[in-house]
């Protein structure tokens, strides 16, 4: 390092400060990513300045013969690659070199040579919301990093956000990708977003809304945690006994409706640009909302006022929905259609989830096992929310996303098993203890 500084100073003296024209003591490393559905292509331009070039040349020309051989080029490119880390949705990727191009040694000595390295990494199939992280630690002492991505050629892919640390050595790329299974071949799919007047655009944003809830596990976890104690009664400061089916149904309906009204209001306000709120605090508040509803499921904090709480936190969740919608880059009029389609999508998915889980909750609430489900569910939601709070507030790395997404991935099976268990449990309980209130099976099948 010292030698390099001396070299830099010496060159500065020789050339005279104003009369130097090339890069001096910096190692410019410019990286551009290009995301496709099944792979990411990365191209790097590495330009060592005069003062660092001799060290770079020495590291490339490993046998020191003053010539950069083909083998030395590929070896060096592999070393550069080993100084990078690339991951998608938390899974490490294995990039493979596609091409390497090295300048003449003389050019590099003058600080003019550009090393070009291109590589590709296959992307495993994943959800519609994806996160690529690229870290570059190559020659970090002298490096000046640039990280960018191209506007995706594939219009089914939309960049949502780019985050970098101060040096641009860590780059996080969030994007959404329309799923091939959702877009039937030949249909407009996401392209429809651009042609808003067509009905196709409406359906794709409607689907986006549905997926947002289906994949946005934090929104669902909040709602489910809030629904957990809905079929129960409060005795003293504890959950005990169970409410009638009709009362449980009304309560659940009230909570879901209140949540919907809450998030519709802020979604509309934010999407139309009347309120603008930074994303991060909202994400933190959403995690807090899960924590609150999880605590309520453990011990009644606000019995009878669940609907009010749902509406209040709905306001916050709506702001997050608006961010997603905002990233589609729609115009004002398109946004009005967008809000409607997106909201209907959210509602539909919410109703599907509630309809799928409600019979189990009501059935199981009549058994002793419900206490275990309620407490287990509340603890799961509570711990997940704490993890998210730590992640979103402190930038800590937690396995929460992996665990929750893993559970959500098997949601259909979990719901089915839960229903079977609750059905069995209820039948057994029904025969053992007389229910204070008979539950007519037709009322259940109606849902």
């Amino acid at each position, binding site marked *: 390092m010292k030698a390099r500084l001396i070299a830099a100073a010496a060159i500065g003296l020789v050339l005279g*400060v104003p009369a130097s024209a090339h890069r001096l003591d*910096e190692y410019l490393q410019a990286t551009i990513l290009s995301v496709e559905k099944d792979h990411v292509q990365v191209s790097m331009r590495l330009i060592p300045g005069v003062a660092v070039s001799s060290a770079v040349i020495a590291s490339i020309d490993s046998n020191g013969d003053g010539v950069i051989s083909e083998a030395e080029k590929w070896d060096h490119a592999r070393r550069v690659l080993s100084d990078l880390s690339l991951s998608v949705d938390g899974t490490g990727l294995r990039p493979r070199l596609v091409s390497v191009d090295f300048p003449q040694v003389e050019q590099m000595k*003058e600080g003019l040579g550009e090393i070009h390295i291109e590589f590709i990494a296959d992307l495993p199939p994943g959800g519609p919301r994806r996160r690529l992280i690229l870290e570059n630690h190559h020659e970090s002492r002298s490096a000046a*990093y640039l990280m*960018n*991505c191209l506007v995706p050629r594939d219009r089914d892919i939309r960049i949502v956000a*780019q985050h*970098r640390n101060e040096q641009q050595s860590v780059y996080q790329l969030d994007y959404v990708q329309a799923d091939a299974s959702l877009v039937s071949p030949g249909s407009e799919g996401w392209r429809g977003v651009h042609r808003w007047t067509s009905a196709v655009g409406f359906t794709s944003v409607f689907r986006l809304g549905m997926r947002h809830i289906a994949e946005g596990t934090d929104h669902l976890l909040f709602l489910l945690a809030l629904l957990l104690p809905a079929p129960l009664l409060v005795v003293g400061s504890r959950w005990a006994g169970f409410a009638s089916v009709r009362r449980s149904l009304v309560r659940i309906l009230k909570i879901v409706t209140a949540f919907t009204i809450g998030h519709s209001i802020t979604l509309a306000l934010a999407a139309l*640009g009347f309120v*603008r709120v930074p994303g991060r605090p909202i994400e933190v508040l959403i995690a807090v909302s899960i924590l609150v509803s999880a605590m309520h499921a453990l011990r009644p904090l606000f019995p009878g006022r669940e609907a009010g709480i749902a509406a209040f936190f709905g306001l916050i969740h709506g702001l997050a929905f608006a961010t997603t919608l905002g990233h589609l880059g729609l115009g004002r009029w398109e946004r009005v259609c967008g809000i409607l389609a997106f909201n209907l999508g959210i509602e539909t998915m919410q109703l599907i989830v509630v309809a799928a889980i409600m019979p189990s909750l009501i059935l199981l609430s009549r058994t002793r096992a419900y206490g275990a489900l309620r407490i287990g569910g509340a603890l799961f939601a509570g711990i997940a929310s704490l993890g998210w709070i730590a992640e979103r507030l402190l930038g800590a790395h937690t396995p929460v996303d992996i665990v929750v997404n893993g559970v959500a991935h098997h949601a259909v099976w979990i719901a089915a098993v839960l229903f079977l268990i609750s059905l069995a449990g209820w039948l057994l309980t029904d025969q053992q203890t007389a229910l204070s209130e008979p539950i007519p099976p037709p009322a259940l099948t109606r849902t």
Partner: protein
Amino acid sequence: MSVSPMRKIHAAIAFVLVSSALTTAAQTATARIVTAANTFLSKLDEKQRQSVLFAFDDEKQRARWSNLPVSMVARAGLGLKDLNADQRAAAMALVSSALSPRGFEKVEQIMEGDELLKTKGGNNPMFGKDLYFISILGKPSEKDPWMVQFGGHHLALNITFAGERGVLTPTLTAAQPALYTLDGKTVRPLGQESDKALALLNALDEGQRKHAVLGFQTADLVLGPGQDGKTIQPEGLKATAMNEKQRAMLLDLISEWANIIHESAAAARMAELKADINETWFAWSGPTTADPGRNITAYYRVQGPHLVIEYAPQKLGGDLSMHVHTMYRDPTNDYGRGLTAK
């Protein structure tokens, strides 16, 4: 009495003068530039003509430009130092005919700056206003597309003409020193590019700034020389989130590049960029203040559907406010590709 011969001559002279004035006024900008190009070519010998002319679709020549001195990245065409005074005047007249008065002044100020690098560097042969190159791609024509390139260290003008349309992208303007005195006058070749951007940043409210100011360093141009044909993801503050006055300031900032080309082409370009304004982004990276009368030390980028502007202060020389590279592109129409594509 018959009309005296003198009167006849006077009348004839007046007729010629008036009609030539009228034709000049009626002559289109492209016709003027074609005339200037043909005048320049007519002053060259055969060998020089061969050096200066390229095929219109010569991709290698199109991309043969750089921010670097000509000794480091060789340019093709004819160097000003290899022209006699008459030829050189004709070459500069051609460049001037293609640009607005302020655009041409900028070019001269960039070249004067390079002359200072030469003289202050003890007659450093790497620099100086002799070391600029001109080339013509295609045949100068009022109908068919053709190009003029002019550049050297810190300058690369790529001007495409297609009928009455004129396209300046991609163009690199840069300056070192970014502030100097010449004949007792303070000159900042790219001072407006700096000042107008800072004024816009200062006109933003706290919430807008949070979007506009990126939280990381940007050491250099992202889409500099050699980076043709790339469209990066825009970021920063979108002009939809600006008020009317701020949008006008953004457009005024853009005009520093859009108005380098001659007036009628600039007017068409500004109309296009104005129509795009709501899809245009402004991103800032680096210090948000500057010493009065000096250039900013921050990087910024203006990007829209038909526009990428980058302003990148350079570490080299030790003072970021004294050395800047800027880039002006239209990802849909660099080298007039959008106009000339069949």
